[in-house]
């Protein structure tokens, strides 16, 4: 996948629209605050335009009309901003790779969709590739393994950037699991429509996570994280599951995904 290159006339303090994603908005707002903190620390002015969803569930279900409606609203809401950044490779990938496809035959919106796609980034790749961040100046005690979410990896080229940033976190040790680039079985509505298959795939994934020996697994997409956390929880695994942004922002007081509110010990990655 070709890497997107940063704009040559990068403002020193770019205005960044936080595209928080519907899952983070609804399920885990802390990830949104972690993303905002990381962007602000990197020198960005962060704005949060009113937003709902990028339209991916409709697009992937074959409902192009609904997807296009939601895409138009997104493009409008973020039009005044220098960049659009999402704590998700999947949602950012929807914009970057599929908005141009969605409006390819629409002469009025084609140009806007292409421009919008160009300025949309996944969080960790934006921090590293655009803002040049190499140290997030955070501390998080523990050992973690990192799962490469599919869309981030294959549509957005997100692989080295989160590892680079995690490498700068004091107290954190990163170990690789086997097949970190293999799908966790989430796949959006697939996880419910073909739940039995999805469940079998995520069981493979949690086996690899457990084999890695790391007491914490990180990823950059909440859908995958909920899937892995849900399976690990059902397996009574002590493995903590977190969005990579939480660790990069040093949010060790927040309980891991699917963990009870009270058990803040597990929140520190099993240390």
């Amino acid at each position, binding site marked *: 996948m070709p890497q997107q290159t940063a704009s040559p006339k990068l403002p020193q303090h770019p205005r960044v629209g936080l595209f928080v994603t519907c899952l983070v908005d609804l399920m885990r707002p802390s990830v949104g605050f972690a993303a905002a903190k990381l962007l602000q620390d990197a020198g960005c002015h962060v704005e949060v335009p*009113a937003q709902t969803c990028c339209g991916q569930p409709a697009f992937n279900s074959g409902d192009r009309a609904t997807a296009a409606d939601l895409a138009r609203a997104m493009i409008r809401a973020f039009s005044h901003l220098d960049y659009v950044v999402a704590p998700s490779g999947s949602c950012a990938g929807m914009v970057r790779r599929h908005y141009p496809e969605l409006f390819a035959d629409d002469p009025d919106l084609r140009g806007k969709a292409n421009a919008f796609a160009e300025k949309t980034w996944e969080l960790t790749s934006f921090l590293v590739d655009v803002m040049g961040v190499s140290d997030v100046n955070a501390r998080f005690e523990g050992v973690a393994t990192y799962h490469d979410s599919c869309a981030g990896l294959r549509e957005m080229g997100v692989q080295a950037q989160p590892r680079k940033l995690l490498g700068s976190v004091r107290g954190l040790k990163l170990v690789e699991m086997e097949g970190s680039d293999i799908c966790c*079985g989430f796949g959006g509505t697939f996880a419910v429509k073909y739940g039995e298959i*999805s469940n079998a795939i995520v069981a493979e994934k949690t086996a690899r996570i457990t084999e890695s020996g790391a007491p914490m697994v990180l990823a950059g997409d909440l859908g995958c994280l909920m899937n892995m956390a849900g399976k690990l929880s059902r397996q009574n695994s002590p493995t903590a599951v977190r969005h990579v942004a939480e660790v990069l922002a040093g949010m060790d007081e927040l309980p891991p995904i699917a963990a*009870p509110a009270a058990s803040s010990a597990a929140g520190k990655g099993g240390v």
Partner: protein
Amino acid sequence: MTATITSPAFRENAHQALQDKQLQAVLGTMRTGFSVKRAEAAAALPEFEALRDSARDIKNHTLAHLDLYLEQYEAKVTASGGHVHFARDAAEARRIVADICRALGAKTVTKGKSMISEEIGLNDHLEREGFTPIETDLGEYIIQLRHETPSHIIAPAFHLSAAQVEQDFRRVHTQLPPERDLSEPVSLLNEARQALRQHFLAADVGITGANFLIAETGTSVIVTNEGNGDLTQTLPKAHIVLASLEKLVPTLDDCAQMLRVLARSATGQDSSVYTTFSTGARRASDPDGPGAYHVVLLDNGRTGMLGTSFQEMLRCIRCGACMNHCPVYQAVGGHAYGWTYPGPMGSVLTPALIGVEKGGHLPNASTFCGRCESVCPVRIPLPKLMRHWREKEFERHLTPATTRSGLALWGFFARRPWLYRQATRLGAAALALAARGKGKFASLPFASGWTQGRDFPAPEGRTFQAMWAAQAGKRRLAGAQPDVKGQAQ
């Protein structure tokens, strides 16, 4: 009629496959098998990515001028003493093959591996017509003994363990001493070779598939690892090549390029053990070879894909890399897909050939992880084409009613940001309350597909947009510079 179709029962097929412990054990080996070998082969060849581009371009060019290359190919085959038969559908192809066999007074028909033969259900037809078809590829031979269909396009018996094959051989090869040792896979191979030798010598007609058909020379090309294809096509009186029309490439040079990506993508070999080029019937000066050479070119719905977005699927060279890298295939195996072609390539091709009414599950049963596209030697955008099938289903109201109404409800709110924020605010709070601090749900009525095998994480309780707006309000009261826009609708 074509091969038996159980694709509409994909969900049930998958359920059975997931319960099958033996199958699951075999599928588990895939994790470290084909995909690791392919990655090593690709890494060892610096120009591999450029070769994939070139392979894609060759196929695109051929498909754009398919009529011209078909004419050129037919003329060259005819000039070299062969015959080209065009078959519109499976029935016509079966009839043509049976007619050729009958005209030669054939009894035994040996067969090299051919997925087209599977697609048209040739073996059953030949048996009904009084011929004895014998599969000579080891995997095909095994599944013929078991009256099964291939579960993988390059490894037909992939779903079986060596122990199962040993049982079948002991059941069928009753002329051999029962105390013989078949514990090593190589002893199974040797026994199959022994059993097949007599058939090779007795065969009247040999049928093979084709990996490529070369227009400039009228040549058919097969790649095998066992050499069975060579014996199949050179020993009998006649050689019938059974191929679909998109196997064409313009030149020998083009074919050489395609071969460089084929084996590497399929098995990780630089090249298959045998690559055999056949041009026409035996000439007077040839020491051996078939007296007659026929090519049956199957359409069966393929020309209907030309000029549509599914034309890209006709680039496929049947390497199997997409299924080797597919998490869904690895979970359920090939038979669950319910027709000849499994995995991602099948999920695109099957609806085109048998109809999306029957094959509609397949393009939906994908996580869109994109690993298939990332390894495809001819760069077919498989997830995009699966999505195009989902669009066709949605347009034609084939999408299940629950999905449609769920999408409509969600779309209603997502189009109305203010309403959406109120609904999600209430929804997050209600769900968090219902989770009672446990952080998860063990069951949810609207997501039983999820909660049967997994817990569903509970939301934190407030939406990000509500919290951000509240904080911005505080910042404003404190006189700080507001850095938030757009909370108000």
